[in-house]
């Protein structure tokens, strides 16, 4: 049977197991939307294309599935760029389908034309312009394959309007044949056994774990490796939900706002085992001072991540699940040597525990003013272990990473690499679509929230019971903190002077709005929000000039922290 291009697209999506797409209609995708009308695929209409991408990204992060977006050409397509770049930096699998002007008009500056393959080349894993209906099904197959395999990432398909209406026989390819793309999954056994040997010889080992741990679903293997070798584990922002933070071996986050004990452990360790992490500058601080006493083992599925920023003594290219499984198996065959290792490294763990005791993660509690960290601790206390937490970007994001003790994989969705304000609300929306029964909370700041607040409408329309906690300090808090510390308190353009009535804003959209102005209100407000059906916005009037500490100033080594007094 012959199908039109847009029908082939929808049939192909179903072959890929897609049941939900996020998007926004327009002239260049109107045929797709017409066919969507009769399709079993659910479509979630966001109020901005950027939000559609973040929602698909949130959906992908919490499920591990590929998130799918549809947007129209020109401005619709360019609006997706921040979302795509966000997903790219954090290696999140997406397929973004953008309408394009008809092929004869491409390059003519036609109405709502933008060169999306050109614009998204540096922020997609790959992109396609469909130029021939005969290529369409194969292109979609390849797009999904590329997005979800290897180091995952977003893939864009630019889909001209004339091809959407061209008819062709539909046959979905069984196999992908990309001669230039063959990701390495199996870690080299000899390298892995060398790594095992280095671990057994270490006196002060540390595991440094990144977002790859969740992407590869290697969380259990990581816990096994850490426990059998009794190695302390520090996690990047992307991996805070990758290792249970209540675990005795957990060191919390490292880097610019890392814990004292994580940063000291990395500085003093003699073996750093990097697992699905990429030595980002926010993690390393001054690079020549980073882990300089340590030999480095680096395990990553993406060879370009290895030796990009730091010298590596032992590289292992492969999927973490495969590599860690083999590593655990190999080590398990040497119980005596493991025993020796654990004995030999007990002094090291004692030192680490000393650091934990001398400089725990803490803040100055208050009875008179709501401390933002206190709100985060209370949300943790009152939500379920499997609650999905999203954040925007800034101080609230760092406090969430520092104080929310994540315990389950894929429960913390945050824009790590790109640092996109306005990510959290639409990501929460996408997560709630994926898991209607689970608690989903967007921890937000007053600045970030206003970057995608229009998505309140989407939450209400689809009855998505996302809870939003705005930690309102009427500042762009993180920039203000830098201005306080490094610019002589010259608060240039960081004071959000107009007080917004967030309760009314929520109510205007048909959501519930709650406000907490005193410490005593905090618990009550969170409980009420969690009990209230439908979306609820909570505004917490928090201490205005609270700072995120510890902090490593730019250009310093991560052991040179400004600590909480």
């Amino acid at each position: 049977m012959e199908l039109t291009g847009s029908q082939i697209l929808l049939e192909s999506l179903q072959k890929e197991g897609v049941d939900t797409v996020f998007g926004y209609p327009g002239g260049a995708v109107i045929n797709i939307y017409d066919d969507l009308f009769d399709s079993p695929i659910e479509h979630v209409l966001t109020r901005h294309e950027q939000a559609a991408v973040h929602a698909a990204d949130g959906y992908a992060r919490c499920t591990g599935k590929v998130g799918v977006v549809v947007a129209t050409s020109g401005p619709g397509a360019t609006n997706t760029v921040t979302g795509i770049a966000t997903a790219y930096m954090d290696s999140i699998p997406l397929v973004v389908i953008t309408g394009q002007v008809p092929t004869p008009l491409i390059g003519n500056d036609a109405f709502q034309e933008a060169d999306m393959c050109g614009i998204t080349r540096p922020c997609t894993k790959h992109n396609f312009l469909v130029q021939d209906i005969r290529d369409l099904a194969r292109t979609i197959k390849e797009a999904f394959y590329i997005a979800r395999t290897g180091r995952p990432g977003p893939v864009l398909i630019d889909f001209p309007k004339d091809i959407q209406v061209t008819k062709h026989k539909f046959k979905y390819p069984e196999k992908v044949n990309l001669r230039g793309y063959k990701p390495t999954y199996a870690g080299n056994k000899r390298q892995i056994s060398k790594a095992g040997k280095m671990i057994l010889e270490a006196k002060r080992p540390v595991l440094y774990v990144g977002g790859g741990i969740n992407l590869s679903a290697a969380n259990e293997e990581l816990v096994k490796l850490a426990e059998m070798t009794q190695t302390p584990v520090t996690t990047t922002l992307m991996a805070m939900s990758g290792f249970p933070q209540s675990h005795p071996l957990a060191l919390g986050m490292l880097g610019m706002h890392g814990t004292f004990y994580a940063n000291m452990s990395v500085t003093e360790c003699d073996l750093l085992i990097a697992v699905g992490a990429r030595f980002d500058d926010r993690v390393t601080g001054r690079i020549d001072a980073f882990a300089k006493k340590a030999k480095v083992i680096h395990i990553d599925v993406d060879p370009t991540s290895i030796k990009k920023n730091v010298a590596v003594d032992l590289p292992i290219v492969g999927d973490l699940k495969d590599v860690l499984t083999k590593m655990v198996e190999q080590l398990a065959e040497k119980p005596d040597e493991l025993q020796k290792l654990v004995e030999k490294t007990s002094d090291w763990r004692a030192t680490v525990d000393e650091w934990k005791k001398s400089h725990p993660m803490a803040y100055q509690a208050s009875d008179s003013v709501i401390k933002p960290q206190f709100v985060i601790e209370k949300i943790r206390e009152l939500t379920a272990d499997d609650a999905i937490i999203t954040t925007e970007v800034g101080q609230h994001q760092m406090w969430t990473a520092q104080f929310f003790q994540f315990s389950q994989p894929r429960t913390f969705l945050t824009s790590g690499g790109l640092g996109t304000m306005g990510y959290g609300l639409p990501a929460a929306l996408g997560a709630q679509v994926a898991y209607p029964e689970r608690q989903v909370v967007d921890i937000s700041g007053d600045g970030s929230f206003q970057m995608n607040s229009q998505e309140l409408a989407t939450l209400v329309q689809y009855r998505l019971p996302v809870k939003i906690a705005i930690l309102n300090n009427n500042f762009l808090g993180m920039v203000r903190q830098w201005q306080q510390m490094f610019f002589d308190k010259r608060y240039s353009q960081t004071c959000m002077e107009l007080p917004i009535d967030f309760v009314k804003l929520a109510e205007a959209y048909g959501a519930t709005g709650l406000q907490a102005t005193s410490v005593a209100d905090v618990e009550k407000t969170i409980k009420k929000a969690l009990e209230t059906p439908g979306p609820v916005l909570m505004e917490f009037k928090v201490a205005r000039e609270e700072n995120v500490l510890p902090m490593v100033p730019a250009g310093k080594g991560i052991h040179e922290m400004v600590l909480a007094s």
Partner: protein
Amino acid sequence: MKHTISVLVENEFGVLSRISGLFSGRGFNIESLSVAPTLEPNISRMTLVTRGDDRILEQINKQLNKLISTIKVIDFTGEEYVERELALIKVNAEADSRAEALRIVDIFRANVVDVTPKSYTIQITGAPAKIDGLVELLRPMGIKEIVRSGPVVMGRGAKGVSA
């Protein structure tokens, strides 16, 4: 250090911009780049000359390989290879300098491919250093225009490179 790299790529929409964009986006330098289809029409071969230390070259190699459209990357540094570039040089050639120009062309085994009463257009092929040498000798006569193809390279020996 200078590196000459051959890249086999899918001959498809946008592939040149993927390669050049990779270099500009990551701050790698390109001294020259030449590209044309191979015997297999759906594969193109690029030859590019770049500079960088070992760490940068390792990244260039890996990043090129990471592109979905890239089939194979060969860095010829440390290998035995033949390197050839083509240049066309339009040089002033009037009365007194005409004979001198021809002598130089002869020494370099170059050819004159276009002649006017005032100029010669000279074609030369060879290693880039040889072309540099010819350019130096012709420069005093006044070079009106020059175009160089950038080098292409091939490994020595019986073995061929294929996708």
